[in-house]
């Protein structure tokens, strides 16, 4: 009953405010009238006399023209040199408006990025994207000239995906620059950028990037449909749309990858994946995304294969440590002490003898405090950030142990867990949640509880899919060929023998063209 009422209310709300509709464009989009004064009055009213709208009215050989822009978003020098100066020298015949239109569309070469605008909604979108809008008396359409000149962060090394031997370029906020970074690396006409707008109010530019000869059509259609049905007012970061792209069964682990690197995007796109770029954020989304990809990064492929394999195994071990180590320590020390060698057992017993709390409580508290410190370290300004490490080291590492509140072995476990969790940062969220869960299970039920919890997590991961591809492929379902880049990192002479297409992974319900 409650569900029915909710559904009816949602339907009514959608009918009142369909996705894609804005305050500027109700059900019927308003077309430009052709009467310049009326158009300018309407625009100023709709803009609510906002201070950043710059409107310059000029007369060229008796023809009234208005040039509109958002302040500081346009390259003023280029506007003057390429448009204003040439335009002011024009002379017209019998039909000045049409002649001006012809000149602007055919002869003016100030900007290759031009569009003809018919509605106020489109006009505002272009103006707010840094275009110069030109309205002409007598024409019921306008022009948008791409002369963006807004300030943006320069291309720099990505913060969250640092590599020793790989490109130092990371994505920036403007989507067009990100697109050029990808295009420079994949010089193939099969690489396609499909533009969309998402967000009822923000009209954020979103781009689907894929290779037409590699991508699965079904996956492409699914992603396109999901992006078009996003029902949000504003989209300011790729994280806003990430949940919409995930499969329904993604609870712990995301089936959508995130990257800051254009070289990573190119590698993924060439394997049949789809990258989703969002204007205003340097983080691109990748679908489909499998669990094993969390352990792959560019350094693996730049170094020699034996070293790449070794690093791969370090990452696997680090992930397992970060998830299981505290829980196992609590379980073994509390319920199964006979598993420990006697000397180690005596040391642990001596250290924990004076602490007032149980091992489980100690582990939960110290890990919680660590999360607080980590979060504080992220938010603090850099000059003050060092204080966090000093406080953390002194308070937890020394004072708490000396005071007998926590045991020294627990601090060591915390340190190893924390360092291990940073080796695979993309799995940090999941590993943190699982870590706490296994501490509780280990503290309450010992290895029995950890075994039960592990089984649930394992089967959940095995049941999860990413756009029809099993999330744990190619581990299970097993593929010997595809494991050459999972358990080991074979050298490029072997990796390059056969083109990988993600949709052809074992157990996949998506197939590439011609194989369906």
């Amino acid at each position: 009953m409650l569900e029915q009422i909710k559904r009816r209310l949602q339907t009514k709300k959608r009918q009142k405010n369909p996705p894609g509709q804005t305050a500027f464009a109700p059900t019927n989009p308003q077309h430009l009238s052709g009467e310049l004064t009326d158009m300018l009055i309407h625009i100023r009213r709709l803009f609510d006399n906002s201070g950043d709208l710059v409107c310059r009215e000029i007369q060229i050989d008796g023809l009234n023209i208005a040039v509109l822009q958002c302040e500081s978003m346009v390259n003023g020098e280029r506007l003057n040199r390429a448009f204003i100066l040439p335009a002011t020298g024009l002379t017209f015949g019998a039909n000045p408006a049409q002649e001006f239109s012809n000149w602007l569309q055919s002869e003016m070469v100030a900007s290759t990025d031009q569009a003809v605008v018919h509605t106020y909604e489109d006009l505002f979108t272009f103006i707010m994207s840094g275009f110069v809008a030109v309205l002409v008396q007598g024409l019921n359409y306008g022009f948008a000239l791409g002369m963006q000149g807004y300030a943006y962060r320069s291309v720099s090394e990505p913060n969250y995906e640092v590599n020793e031997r790989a490109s130092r370029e990371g994505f920036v906020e403007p989507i067009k620059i990100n697109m050029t970074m990808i295009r420079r690396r994949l010089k193939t006409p099969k690489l396609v950028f499909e533009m969309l707008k998402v967000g009822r109010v923000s009209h954020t530019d979103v781009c689907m990037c894929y290779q037409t000869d590699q991508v699965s059509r079904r996956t492409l259609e699914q992603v396109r449909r999901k992006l078009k049905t996003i029902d949000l007012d504003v989209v300011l970061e790729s994280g806003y749309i990430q949940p919409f792209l995930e499969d329904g069964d993604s609870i712990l682990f995301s089936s959508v990858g995130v990257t800051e690197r254009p070289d990573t995007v190119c590698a993924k796109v060439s394997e049949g994946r789809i990258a989703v770029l969002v204007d205003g954020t340097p983080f691109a989304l990748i679908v489909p995304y499998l669990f094993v990809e969390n352990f792959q990064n560019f350094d693996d492929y730049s170094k020699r294969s034996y070293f790449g394999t070794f690093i791969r195994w370090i990452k696997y071990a680090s992930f397992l440590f970060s998830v299981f180590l505290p829980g196992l320590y609590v379980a073994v020390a509390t319920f199964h002490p006979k598993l420990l060698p006697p000397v180690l057992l005596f040391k642990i017993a001596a250290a924990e003898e004076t602490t007032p709390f149980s091992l489980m409580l100690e582990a939960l508290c110290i890990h919680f405090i660590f999360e607080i410190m980590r979060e504080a370290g992220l938010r603090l300004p850099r000059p003050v950030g060092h204080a966090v490490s000093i406080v953390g080291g002194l308070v937890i590492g020394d004072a708490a142990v000396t005071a007998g509140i926590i045991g020294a072995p627990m601090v060591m476990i915390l340190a190893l867990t924390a360092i291990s969790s940073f080796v695979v940062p993309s799995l940090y969220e999941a590993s943190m949640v699982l870590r706490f869960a296994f501490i509780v299970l280990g503290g309450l039920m010992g290895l029995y509880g950890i075994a039960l919890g592990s089984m649930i997590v394992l089967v959940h991961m095995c049941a999860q899919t990413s756009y029809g591809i099993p999330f744990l492929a190619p581990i299970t379902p097993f593929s010997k060929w595809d494991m050459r880049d999972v358990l080991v990192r074979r050298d490029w002479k072997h990796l390059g023998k056969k083109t990988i297409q993600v949709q052809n992974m074992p157990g996949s319900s998506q197939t590439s063209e011609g194989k369906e």
Partner: protein
Amino acid sequence: MLGGNVRVRQLVVLLLVSRIFTTLTYIPQAGKSTSGLVTLLVNGAGIVAAILLALPAFVVFHKNKGQNVLDLSYTTFGRVGGSAVAGLYTLYFLACTAIAAAKFEYFVTTVLFPQSASAAVLFTVILTGAVIASFGLEGISRSTLVVMAVFVLSLAITVFSVFPIIHTYNYLPMAMGSLDKMVYGLLESLSQTAELAFFMLAASSIKGSFAKGYCAFVTITFAGFMLFYLLVEGSMGIFALSQPFPFYTLASIGEFFSFERQEAIHVSIWIFMGTLNIAIYVWAACVSASYWAGKLKKPVLIAAVGIVAFGLAWLLAGNLKLFADVLFAMRTLIPLAAVVFLVPLLLLVFSKRRAKKPCGK
């Protein structure tokens, strides 16, 4: 809950994992089965008997690919008959779940936590099994590769640990076996072959040959029994018969370099298999129940099956005499035969009769 595609070898590995747990937690004193080298003969006969039991099912599923036993029952016997068969399967799998959970509880409370409440152990394991079952057959079958890999590693360590203490003089000679014990042993191992019923229920989801998959499963299972016997009796001799869980004792006496008493690690791995063992029966009971209680939503159905299974398991765990009677009833092969032999046979007979009837009559 059905649907999805499972490769037949994934299903075989899943059922092997489930069956291995039953073997590892075998209690010699619970039955009067045979011991000694004659066990090898019994296991060999077991392979043949298990395949013979499945012959009607082979024919049925060879003729009707892409359907499971309940789909065929509804098609052949009609709504009422089909619901009766679905009800029979539901009861059978509920019984299997309860027995598996009770055996698991006995194992955990004997080996790991002697002081713990049996209700707590039953609740946690059935809850885990129900949660796992809710992920579906595809997810469960994919996870078995990882579990099997971990178990094989654990088994290799155990074998390596006990190899120095295996002696041929520990094996009881064949002449010590008696015919009635051989028959009893055969019946006991056959009665635990509920996996055939599972195969029949999952037939619509299998990609591959039903018959080949089942034969491979049976052969590997009984070969596994033989290996188990050779290891246990070869290292402990007649002492193994006095142990409640001989393989557990084997894991605890082995030494792997300087590591001793590793049984807690091995048991944790066995618990993976134990939860899968219960999860597949819960899944099967839910799927069977969905045929006659289809209006119930999936979470409600799983919860209902879990609660009933918990109740039955608690009854069995709390009353050893009742547990022994139930195990005896299963050993008579009547429930198993009804589910895996009689139903397919009736399907064959009735489908032939239906085919013989002229159109319109």
